[in-house]
């Protein structure tokens, strides 16, 4: 173990630890754009620079390993000047559309400009003007807002392993795009949205069916309802409606697929069943719960009296909760009296 001093506070960490991780351990927050612990460290955005006593330059906290006796300042005068400069440079080619921007309130750039009091850029130069790529069914790519942190490209490459997007061009021309600039629709993109989930600004964003502000939604942690991987995710809820899904930490390592990330429309679909239906004169017609229950219990009693419990069978479901399954089999076994309960495990 090595001992490091961060902002005057001593912390003991393993030798391979980075300054960023050591700071996290004692609750010191160092800002980042491009850092994601799941990715290979690359230190490209520079916003996490810190001052190390005895060092000449300002190293990036996310890739610099600690050493014994290291003394770090995370908000020194030089550090703050450097961070302000970086933000000033980013804003030199970033539209200040915060009033209408979808990410207002959950944008790392906005948060840091607030923290370091950068209202606008001091540079007056050319600005990019890319058409917005809306060709994907679920998300858009607005390269005019991109800050080139590279997280989307690295998630697509290192984690999702799809390599649909990459950096195109050099210098001022650098932007995220698809091979031969054919657009997302004609790329190998599988619409998993893992790039969208890591974008720190509004360069990659979900196409919203309902407009909402980040501060208007409640987040509810749950488990995905599609395949058996059991991905953990947060449902973003506004006015009793799920408006977005974000991946969470769990078996899925904060990854999702297209279904988990984007296919939640069924929840609020107008065709959802809202009332019991009972067949009358050959047609299914709306009924009260009491009516429906009476028909069911009446029929169960009648058939059971005539033929016994062995003529009943139930299909429980691989789609509902464990608790729902338990109650269904208990209903069949304890209340009706048959073990004929099965489900589509084989399909």
């Amino acid at each position, binding site marked *: 173990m090595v001992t490091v001093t961060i902002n005057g506070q001593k912390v003991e960490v393993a030798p391979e630890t980075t300054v960023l991780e050591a700071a996290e351990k004692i609750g010191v927050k160092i800002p980042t754009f491009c850092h994601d612990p799941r990715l290979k460290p690359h230190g490209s955005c520079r916003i996490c620079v810190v001052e190390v006593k005895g060092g000449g330059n300002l190293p990036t906290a996310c890739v610099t390993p600690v050493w014994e006796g290291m003394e770090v300042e995370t908000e020194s005068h030089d550090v703050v000047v450097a961070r302000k400069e970086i933000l000033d440079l980013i804003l030199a080619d970033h539209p200040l559309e915060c009033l209408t921007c979808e990410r207002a309130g959950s944008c790392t750039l906005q948060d840091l400009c607030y923290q370091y009091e950068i209202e606008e850029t001091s540079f007056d130069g050319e600005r990019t003007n890319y058409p917005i790529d809306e060709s994907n069914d679920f998300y858009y790519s607005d390269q005019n807002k991109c800050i080139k942190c590279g997280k989307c490209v690295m998630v697509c490459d290192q984690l999702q392993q799809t390599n649909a997007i990459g950096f195109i061009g050099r210098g001022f021309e650098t932007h995220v795009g698809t091979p031969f600039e054919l657009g997302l629709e004609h790329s190998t993109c599988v619409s998993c949205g893992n790039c969208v989930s890591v974008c720190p600004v509004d360069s990659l964003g979900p196409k919203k069916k309902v407009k909402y502000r980040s501060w208007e939604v409640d987040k509810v942690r749950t488990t995905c309802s599609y*395949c058996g991987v*059991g991905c953990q995710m947060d449902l973003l809820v506004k006015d009793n409606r799920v408006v977005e899904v974000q991946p969470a930490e769990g078996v899925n390592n904060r990854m999702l697929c297209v279904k988990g990330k984007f296919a939640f429309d*069924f929840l609020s679909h107008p065709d959802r*069943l809202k009332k019991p239906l009972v067949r009358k004169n050959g047609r299914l017609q709306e009924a009260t719960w009491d009516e429906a229950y009476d*028909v069911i219990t009446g029929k169960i009693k009648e058939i059971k009296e005539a033929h016994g419990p062995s003529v009943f*069978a139930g299909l429980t479901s691989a789609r509902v909760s464990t608790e729902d399954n338990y*109650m269904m089999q208990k209903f069949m076994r304890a209340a009706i009296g048959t073990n004929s309960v099965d*489900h*589509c495990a084989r399909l």
Partner: protein
Amino acid sequence: MTNSVSEVSKSDVLFVTGSNTTENHPVIGSMMKRAVQDGAKLIVADPREIELAKYADVYLQIKPGTSIALANGLMHVILEEGLEDKDFIEKRTEDFDEVKEIVKEYTPEKVAEICDVNAEDVRKAARIFGEAERAAIYYCMGITQHSTGTESVMSISNLAMMTGNIGREGTGVNPLRGQNNVQGACDMGGLPNVYPGYQPVTVPEIAKKFEDAWGVELSKEAGLTLPEMMDNALRKDLKAMYIMGENPMVSDPDTAHIKKAIENLEFLVVQDIFLTETAELADVVLPAAAFAEKDGTFVNTERRVQRIRKAINPPGEAKYDWEIFVDLMNRLGYEEKLQSAEEIMEEISKVTPQYGGIDYQRIDGNGLQWPCPTKTHEGTKFLHGEKFARGLGLFKGIHYKPSAEVTDDEYPFIMTTGRVLYQYHTRTMTGKTEGLNNLMPESFIEINPVTAEQKNISDGDMIKVASRRGEIKVKAKVTDTIAEGVVFIPFHWAEGAANILTSGAVLDPYSKIPELKVSAVAIEKA
């Protein structure tokens, strides 16, 4: 799964068979590709040249229904070259000689002929698997949906045991469960022969335990499996069915047969979130809450019991599924007092040994993997660590048997079925998302270019596909990712439904799974 999802990165060899992982378990699929990039070797055996095949060190395009022959061939080479784990076989298993004897005749040349692959590739795959320090097998319905499904699983278990690849991190026999809570449904006794926790209904002491817990006399006879229910309904021996959250009219084999069976019922209740094809045939349809509208748990493919939480209210008058059963039980004269999902889990933990230590407080963060018998138990990352559930691992010598359904002059092609990335099961949920329907709007049939040319079929043509059960029309997708003589149709759509063609007649004798992966069909331009 015997092991855990995170262990994909711990294996030095992955053997993926009968699983199109990148489409059906996409998050695990990307983990597998990452493992390959980090140096793991990959063996893929599948009738379709799936995405993972491109990443494989050896890809075996086996004929559908020949997995047992392949496993026997791999074991033949492993034994011939002395790559088996003699220590593991001696200390942890029994009846090894039975397998040794049987695999003798499965030379790579013979296997190559049965499976329609190259003998050298069988040798290469066997060496990669046999030489691995940690090899894991991942499989899905391509292994199980056969008349020899259970034996196919036994044969790959033989392979894992023979090489000592079980009971350690990064190894195992790992079925990827296809539905969010198929594990939980099985765990909870959603099966006709067992109570929750796989406790047989036919064992008197166990029945007694549940009679005491539930306060009623219980049937000691195993019930009917789903295919048996349908057969009994056809014969009018089954009078009433209660179907929750299932759509057998699209998901089950031989739709015409299922429809007739369901129409024969005197009384049908369907409880679901949409008016499915099955619900349309019901006498009573009850509106249920969806996953985002209720508290509860799902159990994932690695046996992890994880929370779902209520985020929104159910629409209209829809109720929780468990709540409906509580209401009905009380109305039928069975006094049921459980009042919340959490209370139900408390009762589950009392009657289910594997769930003994599970409660909502303990699983609030990251869930728990059963077996978790006590409140201080930390859950089980991988099974069979010190010893197998039965003590010694039992080898079973298994011979290859051809599929029950065979091709002939009239039906010369093998049709296999499956899923695609952009739809899910019978589309009850995914069919409501416009973007998914744009990406994957309709059913299709994959046909090899050589076959297509012989039949004068071009990409996009409408094709008439007929089996001994029925006939459908679907669009042709001409692709060399499928072998000559084999065609593939996804089963999601009610229009151009693959299950009109499949057979429910021959079931696996152990698990009663239908032979969905092999149907003989004829194809021609419509």
